[in-house]
Structures are given as structure tokens and as C-alpha cells.
């Protein structure tokens, strides 16, 4: 009997348990929102400084075009385009750095040292330098976001490549794959569990960095994405809009987590190279 068939009876139980887990979590979130709504309505809270949850939702929906001008989409795209561009650059850089590290001992040490140096540094600390070098431009944002993403991605890719089974590498040699063939057909897919986890961490760092950098840009009056929108809402005392922006940052962050989980379920978890 295959392992697949053996696992079948477990699926029902784990499925039911997952539904309960989700229901419980949803209940926690709904309770939090209810407490927020009631506390502001019943308590002596200045709604100009701390709006009700319902006001924030109305503001969010209005910004998305449900009963108002759909201005939020532009800000969302602005932020997403910066982070997606940075993500692509980071992945390419990480693959190049890891490839060098795999063939050269010096490059491996270089990557090890530089990752160790930059990993603990919040890359937002580089923003003043980036503004000095690139001005208040998109390039400054991309620079700091790349600096926050590339190290965790490169680091996990290096660890992932180093832990690829020697038998699979020998298999690649046996079937006469060259360096590029081995990288693309053996190393990358085999290192995918580590790579996805690196991309996830990298995305998390990048997402925080881009919003923070936009807030700084916002304080200087330049146009920008969601961070800028949040800061602008503060300037005009549209606090509900500011909270809507914060909610949006959380929602997009969670949506990206779901995308990574979906990719994992369709790839590494399905292949059994990563525990479900």
C-alpha cells in the first residue's frame, strides 16, 4: 500500500480540525473588532483621534471605490510596484550571489560575511544615505527595500543549495547536466523549500521597509504609496483614513502570506519535501 493511501483516513480528521482552527481564529478577530467598536462608542474616546471600527471600514471601502473615489488603488499599486520590482531584483541578485558561492570558496566567505553584516541592520537605517545618493526618488525606495530583501533570500538559497542531496547532484552529473542545467533542474527545485521560506522572510522585511520608507517620504511631502497615504491622513486629520491605510497594510501582508502558503501547498508540500 502506498503512503498516499495510508494517509487517506487522516485527511478527514485533519480537515475538520483545520475548519475548527479557522473558525476559532475568525472568532478572535471578530471579538477584537467588536471590543474596538464598543469601547470607542461607549467610552469617552475622541473619535477624531481614535475612530470606531465601522468608520475605518467605511473609509476603507470608500477609498476602494465602494461609495467614494477609488483613490486607494493608486497608492496600493505604487507600493506594490516598488516591492515587486525590489523582489525581482533581490531574487536575481540572490541567485547570482549563491551561484558564485557554490563555485568559489572566496565568494562563499564573502556572502557569509556580508549577510552576517547586513542581516541585523534594519535597512530603513540606510534611507538617509539613499536619499543623499538618489534623492527623493523611487530608486531610493527600491534600494532600501532590496537591501532588506536580498540577504535573507540569498542566505536561505545558499543553505538550501548546500543541503541538496548529493545523490541528486550525482544524478545531474550522470545525465550530463552542465552548471546551468544543474542549477535550474536540480539545485533550485531541490532548494525550493528553503527558497520559499527565504522569499517569505524577505517579503516580510521588504513590506515593512517600503511602508516605513514611504512614511519618511510622506513627511517630506513627496507623493508615494500606502505609507505616504497614512502619513497624509494624519496631516489632514483624516484619522479614519489613516487607520484604513494601516488595515490595508495588514490585509495585503496577510494576502501575501496566503500566496506563499498556496505556492508551498502546490509545490513543496505536495512533493513531500516540506511538512504540510
Amino acid at each position, binding site marked *: 500500500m*502506498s*503512503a*498516499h493511501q495510508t494517509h487517506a483516513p487522516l485527511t478527514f480528521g485533519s480537515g475538520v480540525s483545520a475548519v475548527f482552527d479557522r473558525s476559532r481564529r475568525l472568532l478572535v478577530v471578530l471579538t477584537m473588532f467588536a471590543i474596538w467598536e464598543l469601547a470607542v462608542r461607549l467610552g469617552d474616546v475622541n473619535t477624531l483621534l481614535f475612530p470606531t471600527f465601522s468608520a475605518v471600514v467605511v473609509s476603507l471601502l470608500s477609498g476602494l471605490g465602494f461609495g467614494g473615489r477609488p483613490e486607494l488603488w493608486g497608492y496600493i499599486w505604487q507600493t506594490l510596484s516598488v516591492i515587486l520590482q525590489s523582489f525581482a531584483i533581490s531574487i536575481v541578485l540572490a541567485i547570482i550571489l549563491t551561484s558564485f558561492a557554490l563555485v568559489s570558496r572566496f565568494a562563499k566567505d564573502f556572502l557569509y560575511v556580508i549577510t552576517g553584516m547586513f542581516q541585523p541592520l534594519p535597512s530603513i537605517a540606510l534611507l538617509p544615505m539613499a536619499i543623499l545618493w538618489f534623492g527623493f526618488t523611487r530608486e531610493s525606495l527600491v534600494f532600501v527595500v532590496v537591501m532588506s530583501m536580498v540577504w535573507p533570500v540569498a542566505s536561505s538559497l545558499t543553505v538550501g543549495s548546500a543541503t541538496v*542531496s548529493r*545523490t*541528486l547532484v*550525482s*544524478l545531474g*552529473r*550522470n*545525465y*550530463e*547536466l552542465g552548471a546551468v542545467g544543474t542549477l535550474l533542474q*536540480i539545485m533550485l*527545485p*531541490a532548494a*525550493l523549500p528553503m527558497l520559499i521560506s527565504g522569499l517569505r522572510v524577505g517579503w516580510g522585511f521588504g513590506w515593512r521597509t517600503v511602508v516605513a520608507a514611504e512614511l519618511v517620504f510622506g513627511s517630506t511631502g513627496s507623493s508615494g504609496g500606502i505609507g505616504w497615504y497614512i502619513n497624509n491622513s494624519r496631516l489632514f486629520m483624516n484619522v479614519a483614513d489613516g487607520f484604513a491605510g494601516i488595515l490595508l497594510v495588514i490585509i495585503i501582508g496577510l494576502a501575501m502570506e496566503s500566496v506563499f502558503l498556496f505556492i508551498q501547498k502546490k*509545490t513543496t508540500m*505536495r*512533493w*513531500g*519535501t516540506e511538512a504540510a
Partner: protein
Amino acid sequence: MVSTQGSIVDARRIGGPMRQAARSHVIHIEGATTQAPNRGEVVVSIEHVSISYTVGSGKRKVIPAVEDVSVDIQRGEKLIILGPSGCGKSTLLMALGGFIPISGGTMKVNGRPVSRPSMERIMVFQDFNQLLPWMTVTENVQWGIRKRNPKMKAEEVRERARRQVELVGLSRQADQFPNTLSGGQKQRCAIARSFAATPEILLMDEPFGALDAINRERMQQELNKIWSEQESPTTIAFVTHDVAEAVLLGHRIMVMTNGPGRVRAIVENPAVGRPADDPEFMQLCADLRELLKEEIA
């Protein structure tokens, strides 16, 4: 151990000269010629091969693993390399695969020296994790065929893969990923992929070594069956330390000495594919065990 009709036929399929040599088992003791007369076309020629490892700081210490091994392997022959653990049999196979260099002698396949791994010499490893985990059983087999025949039409690749998957008894698991297969099924898939790539010689490094006894016996019988059902019989070099496995599978059995490995004897095997209770099978097993005991002692 149960014999199948297929594996008995397999013994009879050996060509005239081989059958002649297989009437009685002849033990060539070290120093005697290792090339039986009137054999078929030589595919692999190993002459006075030595292999050494270097260890220690600066890699100054040289440890000989294999010394002065000479043997020819004929087309369509299954040669078993038998010896105690650590005798260098896997090292010899890895060298034949081109994965490690030899330090002396010559090693040729079809007259060309072995210098690097090649699809002419496909390896089946002992490790269950030799399948690409991101591909299904069929896709793994198709991958091997495509690598070997990049210009083959997709339809032909699919058909050849389907045939090999069916031959190893994995039709029901054809669309499953390796993580859902048992150890034996994984090895079957690896064998299907290797046969499908039609190498000049298949190198098998104790592929059933990590299986339980029942599965190991089944796989041994099935290897004989798969080998006999190929369009043209594949040449196989098979490493094992299991005497019964050697007698069941090998047309000839090369016994190696305890490390550093030398050729202790080359045995003609008349009992290939026969049931374990066959008198000749049992006699040869006993003879080989005696040889191995002398080595270990």
C-alpha cells in the same frame, strides 16, 4: 525464495557461447585470465585498475581502495561485483561511472577511456532519494528519456516511459509523486528511468541493499524479468555483498578481496535466475561463501 518463469527463461536467453560457459561454474582464481574465451562483444574493458583516496591535512596520506583489477564485461551480460564491506567494490563502480578518477591502469567503455559521468553509463544508487521529488513516476522516467534523446518526439517519449513504468509494475502509481511511494517502488522507478535511458551499461550500487528481505527477493526476481524483457538485453554491472543475490542475478560473479580490493576470483554462474533450492544454486552459494569467509578471516 520463489522463482518466476520469467527468470528461468532469462537464463536460457544467454547466447550460445555464454550458455556453453554456463554449463558448469568455473572459478578463475586470482592471476588466471579473467576473460572467458568465445564471449560476445566487449563493452567494458578494465585493465590493471587501481584507485586510491587521499586523506589528512594536505591530502598527503594515500589509502589504496582498489588494486590491479582487470575484467571485461560483454554486451548484454550481468556482471556481479561481490565482496565484503569496505573491499572497494562501490569505489570501482563509481570509477566506472566516471564519478571518481582512477589512479592507475585503464578503464574503457566501447574503446573510449572513462573520464567523467556520462549517459552511456547510468547509475542506480542505493539511496531511495534518487528520484526527482518534484516529478511524478512517469515524469521521472520521461526526464531520463528526454535527457538521453533530446530530439525524440514527445509521443514516443510518453510511450517509452509508459512501457517502462508498466514493466516495473508501477502503472497504478504512474501519476504519484515519489514521497507517496514505498522504498521498493522508488527503486523500481529509478530502475525504469535507467533502463528507459538505454545506456551502454547500467551500474547498480546495491540498489536493493536498504530494502527488507521480502522486497529485496521480489526486486531481484523482477530485475531479471525486466532485464530479459528489454528490446536488447542491457549490460549491467551490479555491486552487492549478498551471495544469494549475486548468484540469482549474475552471469558472472567477480569476487573481490578484503580492502584494498583485488580480484579474488571470477566465477561463471550456471545458476543465474534459478530457484534458491536448485542444487547448483546452493552449491555455488556455498562455494562463494567459503571464498568470502577466507577473505574476512
